[in-house]
């Protein structure tokens, strides 16, 4: 059956923001889609991958975001339409290419989508990727609703071809993952055949100053179009007491707050969809109308600073203003904007009592939840191989007794910095950075550094950006001990395939890039172990800690969720033998529940003994190793399932 997203005719669909972006690309006749998984962006590639079963379209998960943008650009250079999508950190990775590409310009329409994560809910940072549009001199659109996400994406390809440069779209988690009804248009099956014009001007950045100037001219062309854009809209009185300039999703919050407070006659909202370059003519008109301006946007004061910067040049033309926003402290300068924040700010500005309407319901609900739902910490799933891996790492580092530590990286295993990973991970930054750091620690010995360092990456992170750092260690003869937690999936972002899985984004079989062969070829000593065998793995890690040079240990075990999905679960039934568990009298201090911390184990305070929570336990069997009384027993599952 054809996927709903691939239906040629327009319709009204319930679409997530990211699906709407994908549909917009399909309606623009996109040929090529590339990206690297990362919340909240992943569904764009996933949706297009589904559509690729019905439509002539190529979709890939690339090894990293820079490669994704480069691969997509090849399609553009050949006259095709292409889209590259990623999360905010991904734009950092792609930015080296981006800031050069924007000098050379592009041919076929190409769109870069950044899905930012305000509040850093599923990221290692909070970052506003819009600044890349500014430093690259490219147009930036910011949709407020899924409908706009579709419309803007479709138009962004035309804009890109019009100015011959890449166009950026910025979404945020709230929009990417919001669902609403969207009126779709018709899918355009682009008949274009890719052709690279070898006789045309080359795509390069030289002469640099000329190209830089050209880039500014393209931006001016975009600004001219933005002045008339339907993506910018004003609602409110002709001369509002307060003008809200709202971008993206925040427009919804502002509208809601004004509506709830009944400020329609006092407050006007200028909804900005074209964020860079700012439509200065349009803004000038509205700035004249109000003395107080409030900026509402997610993460950085990007629009705020941009507007204030050119307003300074307008001077007397617009008169003296009171600028309110992140800079004035009226909006928080970190975290996600929300309707409640807007309500509070507006109530404050208009001397109104903060509305209690929603609190009447939300307040009691919140306290009810706080009483009845125990607080949950970040934790590895039951059966997760990472728990076993970090237990082995912890043991080996303790045995080694030289204050060794883990230089961590990005993935589920970042949680190794918390109790679920025995607090082993001592630093986490960008993809692959843990390995680069480790290559540096590996050269500190000449100054007397004697602490062993284990750098830990997942399989997908390994392919993404760890390999250059490993080469760096080999090249510079740094002592480096890399542990690859190979769980056969890009688990944290939703099990997307990667070069080690043998499948592509479109579901095609492909070669498996063998990380062991790769590392061996770089001169590293490579070993493979099963993290579930914790004691043996701890000894292996310990032995490798005593060695020098580049060492790679691959801890290979499928992600527990993949195991459930592919193999139908785990083989064991786990039980705490109640007569063997000594409870508080043991002297173990509830080791299984308190230290090992698998959610499948709990300490029954009434009985004073540990128990397995049979609803949560998946039956991996790992905990049978940890009890000093050998009270945790594993038996084959079938025996118990018969009844």
């Amino acid at each position, binding site marked *: 059956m054809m996927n709903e997203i691939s239906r040629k005719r327009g319709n009204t669909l319930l679409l997530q923001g990211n699906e709407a972006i994908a549909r917009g690309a399909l309606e623009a006749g996109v040929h090529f889609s590339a990206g690297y998984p990362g919340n909240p962006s992943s569904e764009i590639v996933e949706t297009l991958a589904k559509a690729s079963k019905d439509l002539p379209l190529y979709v890939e998960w690339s090894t990293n975001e820079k490669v994704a943008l480069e691969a997509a650009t090849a399609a553009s250079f050949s006259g095709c339409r292409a889209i590259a999508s990623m999360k905010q950190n991904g734009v950092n990775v792609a930015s080296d290419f981006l800031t050069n590409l924007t000098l050379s310009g592009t041919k076929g329409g190409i769109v870069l989508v950044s899905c930012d994560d305000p509040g850093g809910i599923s990221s290692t940072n909070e970052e506003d990727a819009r600044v890349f549009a500014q430093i690259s001199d490219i147009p930036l659109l910011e949709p407020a609703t899924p409908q706009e996400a579709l419309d803007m994406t479709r138009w962004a390809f035309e804009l890109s071809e019009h100015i011959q440069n890449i166009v950026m779209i910025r979404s945020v988690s709230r929009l990417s993952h919001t669902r609403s009804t969207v009126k779709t248009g018709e899918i355009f099956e682009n008949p274009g055949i890719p052709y690279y014009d070898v006789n045309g001007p080359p795509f390069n950045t030289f002469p640099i100053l000329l190209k830089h100037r050209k880039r500014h001219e393209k931006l001016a062309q975009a600004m001219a179009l933005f002045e008339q854009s339907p993506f910018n809209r004003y609602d409110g009185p002709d001369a509002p007491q307060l003008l809200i300039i709202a971008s993206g999703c925040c427009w919804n919050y502002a509208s809601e707050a004004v509506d709830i407070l009944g400020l329609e006659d006092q407050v006007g909202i200028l909804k900005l969809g074209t964020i860079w370059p700012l439509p200065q003519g349009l803004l000038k008109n509205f700035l004249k109308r109000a003395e107080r301006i409030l900026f509402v946007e997610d993460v950085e004061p990007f629009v705020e600073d941009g507007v204030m910067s050119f307003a300074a040049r307008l001077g007397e033309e617009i008169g003296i203003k009171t600028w309110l926003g992140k800079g004035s402290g009226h909006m928080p300068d970190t975290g996600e904007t929300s309707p409640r924040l807007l309500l509070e700010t507006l109530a404050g500005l208009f001397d109104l009592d903060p509305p209690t309407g929603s609190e009447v319901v939300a307040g009691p609900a919140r306290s009810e939840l706080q009483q009845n739902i125990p607080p949950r910490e970040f934790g590895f799933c039951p059966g997760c191989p990472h728990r076993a891996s970090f237990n082995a790492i*912890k*043991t080996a580092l*303790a*045995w080694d*007794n030289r204050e060794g530590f883990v230089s961590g990286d990005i993935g589920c295993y970042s949680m190794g910095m918390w109790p679920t990973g*025995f607090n082993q991970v001592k630093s986490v930054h960008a993809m692959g950075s843990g390995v680069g750091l480790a290559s540096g620690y590996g050269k500190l010995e000449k100054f007397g550094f004697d602490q062993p360092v284990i750098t830990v990456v997942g399989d997908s992170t390994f392919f993404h950006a760890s390999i250059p750092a490993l080469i760096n260690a080999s090249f510079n003869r740094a002592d480096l001990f890399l542990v690859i937690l190979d769980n056969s999936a890009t688990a944290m972002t939703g099990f997307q395939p990667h070069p080690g899985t043998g499948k592509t984004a479109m579901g095609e079989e492909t070669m498996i890039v063998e990380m062991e062969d790769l590392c061996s070829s770089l001169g590293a000593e490579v070993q493979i172990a099963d993290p579930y065998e914790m004691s043996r793995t701890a000894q292996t890690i*310990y032995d490798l800690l005593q060695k020098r040079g580049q060492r790679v240990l691959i801890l290979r075990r499928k992600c527990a969720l993949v195991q459930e999905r592919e193999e139908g679960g785990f083989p064991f039934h786990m039980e705490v033998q109640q007569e063997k568990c000594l409870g*508080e*009298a*043991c*002297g*173990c*201090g*509830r*080791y299984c529940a*308190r*230290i090992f911390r698998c959610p499948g184990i709990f300490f029954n305070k009434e009985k004073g003994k540990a128990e397995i929570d049979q609803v949560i336990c998946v039956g991996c069997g790992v905990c049978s190793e*940890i009890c*000093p*009384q050998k009270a945790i027993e594993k038996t084959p599952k079938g025996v118990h399932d018969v009844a």
Partner: protein
Amino acid sequence: MKSVNPKGQKTLIEDVLDQGICVKCGACVGLCPYFSYRDGQVVALDACAAETWRCLQVCPRADYEGTSLEREIKDTRGDREIGPYSEIRAARAKDRKTRNGGQYGGIVSALLIRALEKGFIKSAVVTDSGNGLSPSGKLVRSPSEILECAGSRYSASGCLAALNTAISAGEDHIGVVGLPCQMEALAKTAGSTPDGEERIRRVTVRIGLFCTWALDYRKLRTYLKEKNIRGPVKKYDIPPPPSEVFRLLTDDGWSDFPLGEIRFLVQKGCSLCSDMTAEWADISVGTLEGQDDWNTVVVRTERGAEFFHEAVHAGFVEAEELPGKNLDHLEEAAANKRARAGAARQERTDQRT
């Protein structure tokens, strides 16, 4: 490792492990999941929160005073520099093979083998050769296993960890061979709560070894690596004065190292030890100066006397009078160690205050 329990593990970590004065006896290891002995080190793996804590009570280096240490030695000829004893002899294994495998007279091996054969003990906790790794404790059940482990290591072995594991596994009638610190740890175990008495009841005989100091195994390994010693060490020896050498046997034969260099590898915690002759043992065994294939045997308890005399009567062990000169030398050496320890302890106290 930071512990959440201020009384037990935390004190032990702060006062002993972090101070670097742990002597790696292994007494705190194997009682719970929190301590581990590996490759010559005792380490804490996780923070303990248990209300019941034994680790601190049994540690020979902790200043914990809650453990009652009771001498069970009734019939003594005196309480002198070498501790209370009922009898002191020169002795050696009758069997030449046992003597050759062991250190000097092979008395420890002979006593254990005899006790096993008679069924006095069912197993023994001894120290293995490490096979290129650090020596560590091993539960043995046969004469051949005992002979495989014979010989001094001059390094701490954490062998009481193996005893704790054996007791937890339900073993009884166990013979234990260990250094003075380990004999003291057993005495502290006997007086510890909540189950020390019950645990120590499983130990039938405690054979202590004379000890001036023990080496930090990892320092020794690094030292030997620098000296290009490859392959497992089969035997260690420090010949009596005035040789001033540390000798070891590998596949390449014997190598000698100046004792002055070796002393830098001694465990820091050994400097605080005042016991040279394992005063808390049932029987203590050491070298006999001037007699390569004999041992000095100090019989201390009734149990010790029982074992020793049975082995002598059975013709397993031959015993002779200890020459007075040897006893004098032994007492002098023991007194020196006691004095050095006293000074070292005083120095630590002064530093703290």
